[in-house]
């Protein structure tokens, strides 16, 4: 129905603009909040909020109207009631509904062995007691529900209704082969999925971490000291899990579930697998200050999304030449982790050498996590080259030069508004571009052309200052009589 028609029928109709994006954000926030029950939470792909097509979403009840979340609570229910059995499942369901209701969110939650059965029950169960389906009871529970509960496509659904198949139970006695021939394999698959004869995987919203510990508080905590103490307890439990599994953490995430339903997260990374409780706690202490407990924290979950096999206390045999450097056993790695946490991982680097003739490509910055350079790698690179400057400019700076003879080193150069009279010069050292490597823009130099070259000179001015200059290409005159080559300063020598 159009809005104009609706207004004609009911002049005092209250209208509100739909906000699909906001609805989606709300559903995502609720999904994040549901992490408190299980790490395996998915936004229901059949729900209205995620339908791409606005018209279709409106026809099926509107955005958010029938949005759904699927929670796989296998192995999580014992946290909410006594024992593994039904009491824990009932307690979880009741807890979920009460907590959502407390936030003025109306919801219907059903618990069943299969996602399909729970989906149908949550939408079409008539009595409150039917929402909880006991183990292996989905066949009887689904029988009285309408066929809409099978998540079928609209044309199939219409045909079913025309044929008088109104209840799911009506389909149970039907022979399967004609059903498939008449309607395709979807109805049979849906029935099998709902009854548990066919597996239906749920794709979690966030990949659940393999290692995870949680701590719920009877009374919400708000002081940062308490948060730190709780983190320390969680970390101790997680490190025991690591030891049993023989792994170490590369990434740890702490999530604070606040009483107002929002979640605050912080994560720390380490450059090599770590399960040393005090060291990890030290890294966390840097981050805990940024976490905001808000009005109080009722639940904390510490998880390790990234773990790696831990190779033991001794990581590598010390090198012969530099006994303590390569192994990192001397606390350097921990120092690098601490520095990287505060300054950013890209700001704490080691220098690796690269086989190249271009001065700016020889030195590569690599994060600490990468393998350190082999001992002596630098010596080999350095012995190949001529004298090099102690400082290299990020980008060469153009200079104005005066030269008596075009091909000679200049007699005077002007750099940053100061003239330097050159009294001594070494050179040229010709360095050609690496034609075998594609250019930064991905193109390759055309075949048959000479690669660009640079002629480097080490020069000394009358004050003793030593510079590393280069001429961009050989000396040549352009059509207008001006020389084409330009001069740059690229580094400062000792």
């Amino acid at each position, binding site marked *: 129905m159009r809005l104009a028609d609706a207004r004609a029928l009911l002049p005092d109709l209250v209208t509100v603009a739909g906000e699909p994006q906001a609805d989606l954000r709300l559903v995502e926030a609720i999904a994040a909040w549901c992490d408190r029950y299980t790490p395996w939470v998915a936004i229901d792909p059949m729900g209205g909020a995620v339908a791409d097509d606005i018209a279709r979403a409106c026809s099926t009840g509107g955005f958010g109207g029938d949005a759904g979340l699927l929670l796989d609570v296998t192995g999580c229910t014992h946290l909410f009631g006594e024992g593994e059995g039904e009491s824990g499942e009932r307690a979880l369901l009741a807890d979920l509904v009460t907590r959502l209701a407390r936030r003025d969110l109306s919801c219907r939650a059903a618990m069943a062995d299969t996602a399909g059965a729970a989906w149908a029950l949550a939408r079409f169960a008539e009595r409150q007691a039917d929402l909880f389906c006991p183990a292996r009871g989905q066949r009887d529970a689904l029988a009285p529900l309408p066929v809409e509960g099978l998540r079928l496509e609209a044309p199939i659904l219409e045909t079913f209704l025309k044929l008088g198949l109104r209840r799911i139970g009506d389909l149970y006695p039907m022979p399967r082969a004609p059903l498939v021939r008449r309607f395709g394999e979807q109805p049979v698959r849906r029935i099998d999925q709902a009854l548990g004869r066919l597996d239906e995987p749920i794709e979690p919203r966030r990949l659940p971490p393999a290692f995870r510990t949680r701590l719920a508080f009877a009374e919400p905590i708000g002081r940062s000291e308490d948060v730190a103490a709780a983190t320390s307890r969680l970390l101790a439990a997680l490190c025991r899990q690591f030891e049993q599994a023989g792994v170490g953490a590369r990434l740890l995430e702490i999530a604070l579930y606040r009483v107002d339903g929002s979640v605050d997260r912080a994560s720390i990374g380490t450059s090599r697998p770590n399960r040393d409780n005090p060291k990890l706690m030290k890294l966390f202490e840097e981050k805990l200050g940024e976490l905001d407990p808000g009005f109080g924290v009722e639940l904390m979950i510490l998880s390790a999304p990234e773990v790696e096999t831990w190779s033991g206390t001794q990581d590598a045999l010390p090198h012969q030449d*530099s006994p*303590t*450097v*390569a192994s990192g*056993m*001397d*606390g*350097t790695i921990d*120092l690098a982790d601490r520095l990287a946490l*505060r*300054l950013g991982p890209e*700001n*704490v*680097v*080691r*220098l690796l*050498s690269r086989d190249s003739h271009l*001065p700016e490509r*020889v*030195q590569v*910055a690599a994060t*600490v996590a990468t393998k*350190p*350079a*082999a*001992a002596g*790698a*630098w*010596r080999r*690179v*350095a012995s190949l*080259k001529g*004298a*090099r*400057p*102690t*400082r*290299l*400019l*990020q*980008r060469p*700076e153009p200079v104005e030069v005066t030269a008596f003879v075009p091909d000679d080193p200049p007699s005077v150069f002007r*750099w*940053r508004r*100061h003239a*330097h009279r050159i*009294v*001594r*010069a*070494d050179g040229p050292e010709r360095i050609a571009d690496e034609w075998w490597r594609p250019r930064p823009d991905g193109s390759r130099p055309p075949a048959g052309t000479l690669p660009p070259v640079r002629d480097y000179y080490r020069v*000394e001015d009358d*004050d*003793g*200052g*030593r*510079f590393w200059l280069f001429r961009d290409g050989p000396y040549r005159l352009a059509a207008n009589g001006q020389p084409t080559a330009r001069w740059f300063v690229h*580094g*400062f*020598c*000792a």
Partner: protein
Amino acid sequence: MPVISPSAFAPPASGAANDRVVPLPASLREKVRRLERSNSVRRRGRAASVPLGIPAIDALLPESGLLTGALHEIEAGPAPSGRVAPHDGAALGFAAHLLGHFGPGTILWCRRPTGTFDAAPYAPALSAWFDPARLLMVTARRDEDLFWAMEEGLRCPGISAVVGETRAADPTAGRRLSLAAEKNGVPALLLRAQPAPPQSVCATRWRIASAPSCSTPGLKDVGAPRWRLELKRNRFGTPSAAETPSWLLEWNDETHCLAVVPEALHGSPGTRFEERLVG
């Protein structure tokens, strides 16, 4: 505990009663300080000082070498003509020479880059003095972060030396660095591209300017790097005859030694190798 008590720097109390003992406590305090310092350094299994290998300079320094548990400042001085130094390539070379002398281990190098005009230390050249694989380069956006990173590095047992490149002169940070260096026996170097207000607590302050090199006779080539080195401050060392002792040094890249060029022979290439001393 090797902690300097603040009263150690206070002027001696001038009371009539202890007039006679005033000269004694000062020297005693110095003695105790030296004992403490070398103790704290030796406890970490490091030498208390590292000789530079240049007898003329080592003779002036305390314990005949550069103290390991101390803050040292290295600044690029103005050129001989008095102009502002265009760059600190020579100061960096001298700092690298010192770093090569401080035992094995990682070298923490903290910098504050200056945008697009930034000129970072270039590892192929530094490899003349030490293996650049030992470097841990840290880039800080603010001076507080830089000083914090330096202090963290001084406390780490695997670090053999900490270098900070900054223009900032923060007396509190300098004092904290000096204390951390003294406590852990790890040297801290402050490298400055321009002379800055001095840190009052540094053990030594050096000023280095590049000096004209000596060409091969008959050619106009660039010779071995020469530096004009001035010892502007020498806190625990022996006073020298000159107010600020100054030397002309030459770095030989082939033999890997730094040696004093005798001033009288300055520039006469025939005899300049005779006084070469191994460094």
